[in-house]
Each structure stands twice: as C-alpha cells, then as structure tokens.
C-alpha cells in the first residue's frame, strides 16, 4: 500500500519524527538520572534516622561471642575504631558526600557490610540480585501478558456472563494481599497436597551446576513464588485492561470502525486493543515500582536467597550499608525497568512522538 505513497514530504516527516523521538528519549533519560540521585539521597538520610546504633549491636554480638567481661574503656576504643573504618566518625554531610563520591567514582563502592565485614555490600547484593530480578521480572511480565490478554477479552465481551464472573474473581484476587496468596499456596499446594516444593531455591541435596537435574529443581521451586505474584498482579492488570477496553469501546472511532464494515477481529485488534494498550503499558511502569516489596515478602516466605531476605537480615542488625545497598539496587532496577517501558511508548502512540 506504500507503493506510490512515498513523497519527499513523507520523508522529511519521518526525519522530524525521529528527531522528536530522540529528544523524548534524551529528556526521559535526564529524568531517570535525577530520580536516581534523589532516591540515593533520601535512602542515605532515612537509614541514619532509624533509632539504634549499629556499633552497639555489633559490639554486643562481639562480646557475647567472645564471652569476656565488658570493659568500658576498651569498648569505647573499639567503637571509635569501627566508626573510623566505616567512615562514621565524620559529620553527616561529609559522610554523604563521601558516599556519593565512592558510589559514582569508585565503581559502585557502597562500603563494607557492618556485619559481614570486610565483605563489600556490593558483592552481597550482586550475589542475591539474580534471584530477585529473575522472580520479579518474569512474574510481572507474565502477569502483564496474561492480564492484558484476559482483560482485553472480558472487556470486549463485557456483557457475557462469563465475563462478569471473571471480573468478580479478579476483584477478589486483586484485593487479597500477596502474602496471603503465598501462604495459601505454601500450605495447600506445598504441604497438604505436596504437588510442588514450597521452600528454598532448589532441592537441598543439589549443588548449582549446569545439569538438567539442578535446572529442573530450580524451575519447580520457582513456580509457587512466581505464581503468588502472578495471581495478585495479574488480577490487577486484568481489571485495568478490562476498564480500558470498555472505555475505548465507547469511543467514536469504534462506532466508525463498525460502521465501515470491518471484521470484528480487525476492530478488536487495530482499533480497540491498540488504543487500550497504551495506558496499559504505562500501568506496567507504575506497577513495577509498587510490586517489588511484594516480591521481597515472597522471598522471605519461600526462603529464597534474594534481596528481600538480605534486607530483612540487615534490618535486624542495623546494617545500614547493606540496607542502603539493597534499596539502591532495587531503586535502580525499578527505575531502569520503568525507563525501558517509557521508551517503548513512542512505538505505540504516535502522539507521544510529537509531544517532545
């Protein structure tokens, strides 16, 4: 259909369009960097407002382990020594500047862990990250795909009885807290019916290796944690997409599409779905941030060695550096995923391309 339609105007049009998209991407990236900085700053100060001195907790652990009598003077000296190691003897603003400098210029040096000193928090986080990212992105993406498809369908068939039942069911699932769903799955599927493993990253007798046995164990252990996420998040996406479809179905261009005598499939695909998809993609970006904490809870419940369990351990010991590192990497992950989603928008919506 483009055989004769390419004219010089059309070409300049696309060139201008490309420039607009470039500007949009550039601006979006600027916002990304700014948000990242703001998040680091807030995280830094918030953790230092938490009551409880990490040094005292650290010292308490040490003296208990060594079983010695407490010596006031020695304790003071020890605490001063540790403060120096962790850079906590300086005033807070200076600590902040040093922290930023090391993080940016020192190759993501986020300081050593208080508890597992001298281990770098960066390494602790990197070791745990694949679990969280794997479970989280896979389940959110699957939830989005399933929810969008199902929501589009029940929105399109809005007046059928089956569709109404699906709405009721999704509403119930959506308002259920994710930990209840996870507990339900652990109790029934994991223990009562013994259908799937409900704890740990893989079977206890195995060592990580590229063997079929290990990989299949890994995957079966991942089913229930991911399912908890998919059920709750997917129900939300289903309801969202249904509402979007119904509102698009009321648009004038849908009436016109039907008046043109297009097949229902074309009307559904090119007119209804394509338009409902745009806000649904934005919803994905928003949900990414709002559901990571759910994944942390799931990790704890299913005893997975991810960032969530690391964070919970660190919190108990006031290990600021580790908590900070976890928060930082979570924010980084969420912002990056959001950025990717946002950059995909101009592909879907020609109006965004021009908005720059």
């Amino acid at each position, binding site marked *: *259909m483009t*055989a*004769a*339609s390419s*004219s010089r*105007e*059309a070409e300049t*049009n696309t060139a201008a369009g490309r420039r607009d998209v470039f500007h949009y991407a550039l601006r979006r990236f600027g916002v990304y960097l700014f948000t990242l900085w703001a998040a680091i700053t807030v995280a830094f100060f918030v953790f230092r407002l938490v009551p409880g001195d990490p040094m005292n907790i650290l010292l308490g652990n040490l003296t208990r382990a060594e079983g010695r009598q407490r010596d006031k003077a020695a304790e003071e000296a020890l605490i001063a020594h540790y403060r120096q190691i962790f850079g906590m003897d300086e005033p807070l603003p200076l600590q902040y500047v040093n922290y930023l400098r090391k993080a940016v210029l020192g190759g993501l040096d986020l300081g050593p862990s208080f508890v597992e000193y001298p281990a770098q928090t960066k390494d602790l986080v990197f070791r745990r990250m694949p679990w969280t990212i794997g479970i989280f992105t896979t389940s959110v993406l699957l939830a989005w795909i399933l929810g969008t498809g199902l929501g589009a369908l029940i929105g399109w068939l809005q*007046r059928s009885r089956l569709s109404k039942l699906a709405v009721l069911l999704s509403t119930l699932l959506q308002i259920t807290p994710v930990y209840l769903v996870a507990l339900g799955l652990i109790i029934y599927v994991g223990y009562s019916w013994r259908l799937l493993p409900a704890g740990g990253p893989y079977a206890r007798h195995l060592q990580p290796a590229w063997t079929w046995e290990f990989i299949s164990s890994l995957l079966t252990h991942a089913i229930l944690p991911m399912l908890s996420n998919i059920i709750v998040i997917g129900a939300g996406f289903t309801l969202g997409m249904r509402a979007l479809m119904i509102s698009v179905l009321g*648009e*004038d*261009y849908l*009436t*016109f*599409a*039907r*008046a*043109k*005598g*297009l*097949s229902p499939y*074309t009307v559904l695909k*090119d*007119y209804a779905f*394509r*338009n409902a998809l*745009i806000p649904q993609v934005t919803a994905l970006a928003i949900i990414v941030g709002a559901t990571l904490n759910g994944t942390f809870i799931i990790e704890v419940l299913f005893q997975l060695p991810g960032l969530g369990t690391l964070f919970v351990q660190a919190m108990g010991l006031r290990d600021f550096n580790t908590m900070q590192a976890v928060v930082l990497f979570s924010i980084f992950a969420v912002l990056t995923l959001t950025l990717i989603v946002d950059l995909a928008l101009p592909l*879907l*919506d*020609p*109006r965004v391309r*021009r908005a720059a």
Partner: protein
Amino acid sequence: MPALLEIRGLSAGLRGRRAVTEVVSHVDLDVQAGEILGVVGESGCGKSTLATAIMRLLVPPQVLQSGALTLRLNDGKTFELLKLSESELRELRWRHLSYIPQGSMNSLNPVLRVGRQMMDTLLQHGLSSDEAYKRSVEALELVNLERKLLDSYPHELSGGMRQRVIIAAAVSMRPALIVADELTTALDVVTQRQILQELAAIRDELGATILLITHDMGVVAQVADRVAVMYAGKIAELGTVNGIFEAPLHPYSQGLIGSIPRGGGQRVEGLPGEAPSPWNYPSGCRFHPRCPQAFSPCQEQAPALLPQAAERWTACHLYDAEVAADA
C-alpha cells in the same frame, strides 16, 4: 419511482430497568435516490437515534423496537436492513451504505495513519491494495485534500481536515446512501460552508443520496432538497426546502424558521419552553404544551402525518379537516 430507502414504522428506544422508553416513534420516511434529505430538530428529538438505527449501530441500552428498513439499489437489488445478519451487514456497509458520525473529531483511530484507516475498509471489501490506494486518493481529491495526508496521523490534522477525511472515507466506495449525522457541528462557519459545498458536489459527481441529520436550519437551507422536521421522536412536517421555508404549516416548523437570525435589526423569535425528554413525552400531540395554536383535541389525540399539498406532509390537527370540524 420507488424510494432508495424506505423507512416504515421505525421505533427505537432506551431499555430501562422496567420498560423501554421510546425515543423515535413510528417514523415513516422515504429517501429518494439522488436527493439530499435534511432531518432537522432540536437536541434530543431522536434524530441521531434515527440515524444510528438506520445504520444498525444501536448499542445497548438503545434498542430497536419495530419497523422495517428497505434499501433498493438502482441495479434492482433490495435489502431488508433490519433482517440482515451481522456478516451480511458488514458486506453492505461502506459498499452501499456509509455513515458520517456525529463527533467526527474523534472518529479516527489515533494510532493508525489516515491511509491505513481509509484502506483497511477497502481491502476488507475485496479491493486490491493498488485499487484501494487509488480510490482513497480519488476520494481525498473530492474533498480537496492532498494525497500526502494518507501518511499523517489524525492528531496532525485540523478539525476541518479530519471532517474531510471522514467524508472522503465515507464516499470512497461510492455508496448509494450516506447517512451524515451533524456533519458540520464542530466547525467554524467558513469551513462549514466549504464542506457543505463539497458535499453537494459529491452528490452531483457520484450520484449519491445523502440523509443529512442536523439541528441547524441554515445547513438544511444551504444544501438539502427536502427536509423532514422532527419533534419529540416524530416527524412533524415533511416537504421541499423551498416549500417549508416559504410557507411552514406546522407551528413547530414556523417556530424553527422564525428563530433563524435574518439580520436587518429584526429580533429573533425563539420558541418558548424546551423540548420534552423521551421519559415524559406529552400525551396527544407532543408539541401541544409549547404550541401557540393548540386547541382541545391536541391534548388527547396524536395527529397523523397527512398530505397537505404536493410534496408536503404535516402532522397537525390544524390541517386535519375532520378533527377541526369536531372541535
């Protein structure tokens, strides 16, 4: 010559919890081949419901209650519009029966290029892509638009251009009948005038028949051949544009024509009161509470649409000799 579209006893309404509220009541109307027939009335008089019912685009809670719609093409083919299945209807739409919807500003899909939206329909109706492209360019030329618009997205076009694209799309398969609902409502008067001229030219060039739904008597005066005045879901008067403008018989037509600004410092005479909503249509003649000439039978008996002169039908007791004699 039989009419191109024969509307008989058409009633459509809104389904409520308990009952159906009639919005359009027993409309009988013939649309003659080649004419521009204006259907004019106040907001809420049921003219859009009539257009949507003819297109069979009513969506719940709108329901079709009764009636018959017969489309007779000049090659002898006849379609009973209300009896067609969805797939037969799809085949008929655009090929023989096109629609220019109310709210043309939002009638184009924002995420598809104009060309795709014009051509997907033509491809669906079995044209090759070359033919579809050629037809689309021709149609755009009919409304004075350049072919490069095919590569544009709707948001890149002005309101008038969008309206023209819709018209071009509607005529691209050279349908026998075009139902145009509030074609020019959202446009400024200059654009409005140009578009009406283009519409008249399309009728002349393609020999299309146009059912023009509007609330604007001025629009009717500019392009229509005949006019049907609608009030509260019924046709009050039907006649040629000249006939009705020169000598309106129905008091409602008189009021409508009296309310057109004429310039020369003359005060515009408005109609007192407002149009009734379908939930409380008055008994008898639905216009009687606002009618300056109402008399006793008007409250009880609904007037029938009766021939008064050549090419003129009026639904008013004033012109019904029998009723007038009884009173």
